[in-house]
């Protein structure tokens, strides 16, 4: 929840976590009112997250000074230890690597987005924090990585922890003009 006011400085401004949580809550509940079913809300959250992600990555790269990642494990480390820390003030742990090393889980012990939240029964299929998936997908797409991000566990649905599963799909090559290989 740290937000830097002026670019370039090392100091980061703090923002009230309640304000942040309530703002996100207001956003999600408004979407729930605007859309008929939860799937549409999930889709919309993902889309909004994507739009945040493609912009946020520029901010992230400018401020964090991380270099190019050489493999997906390094990317995972940067996401968990630098990006989450910088924007949400938490450090998720990385587990459950697939044998091929192209898929891992981020375990969030406490998710700042869901403080106070209790899902009502009529929104059982709502993925409340789906915005995060969109952010990760959008940000990584900008650095030539196509990934699939989804929630597999959620404390709001009674699970002990929140788990985000990330799967590497492919590298996005620089677009060649159609017809040329």
């Amino acid at each position: 929840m740290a937000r830097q006011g002026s670019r370039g400085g090392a100091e980061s401004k703090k923002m009230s976590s309640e304000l942040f949580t309530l703002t996100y809550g207001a956003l999600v509940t408004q979407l729930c009112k605007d859309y008929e079913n939860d799937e549409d809300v999930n889709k919309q959250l993902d889309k909004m997250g994507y739009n945040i992600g493609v912009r946020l990555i520029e901010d992230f790269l400018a401020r964090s000074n991380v270099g190019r990642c050489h493999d997906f494990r390094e990317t995972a480390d940067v996401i968990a230890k630098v990006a989450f820390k910088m924007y949400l003030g938490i450090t998720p742990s990385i587990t459950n690597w697939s044998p091929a090393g192209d898929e891992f889980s981020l375990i969030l012990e406490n998710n700042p987005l869901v403080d106070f939240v209790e899902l009502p029964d009529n929104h059982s299929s709502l993925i409340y924090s789906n915005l995060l998936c969109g952010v990760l997908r959008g940000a990584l797409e900008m650095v030539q990585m196509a990934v699939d991000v989804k929630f597999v566990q959620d404390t709001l649905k009674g699970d002990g922890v929140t788990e985000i599963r990330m799967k590497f799909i492919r590298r996005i090559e620089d677009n060649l003009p159609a017809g040329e290989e």
Partner: protein
Amino acid sequence: MAVCIAVIAKENYPLYIKSTPTENELKFHYTVHTSLDVVDEKISAMGKALVDQRELYLGLLYPTEDYKVYGYVTNSKVKFVMVVDSSNTALRDNEIRSMFRKLHNSYTDVICNPFYNPGDQIQSRAFDNMVTSMMVQVC
């Protein structure tokens, strides 16, 4: 510990009421309802200036033969009423006070849930569990 806990909205309609044993529910509803007059009396007895700096905890509202009724009013005029068994003499004023504080904190969390519309009945599971725990603690 407590036999009945109620949350009353600013406009004096119940947001939440839970009692144990459940078969006597109606009686407790009456008790709580009656206590609201005492709450109003206590608040209006104080001067305008005093209301602003009063304590949230109102203390014992009135004792009946079997029960004691305590009250607590937040600055937003939401009332908490707690009915306690008279036979339970071990319960100190301080403990009642801390129970109300706990109730207040829990109520704040409910209000902060974005899916809760202020003024609706409270259906939160977390709040319900907290109230239940306060009712069974020393029985």
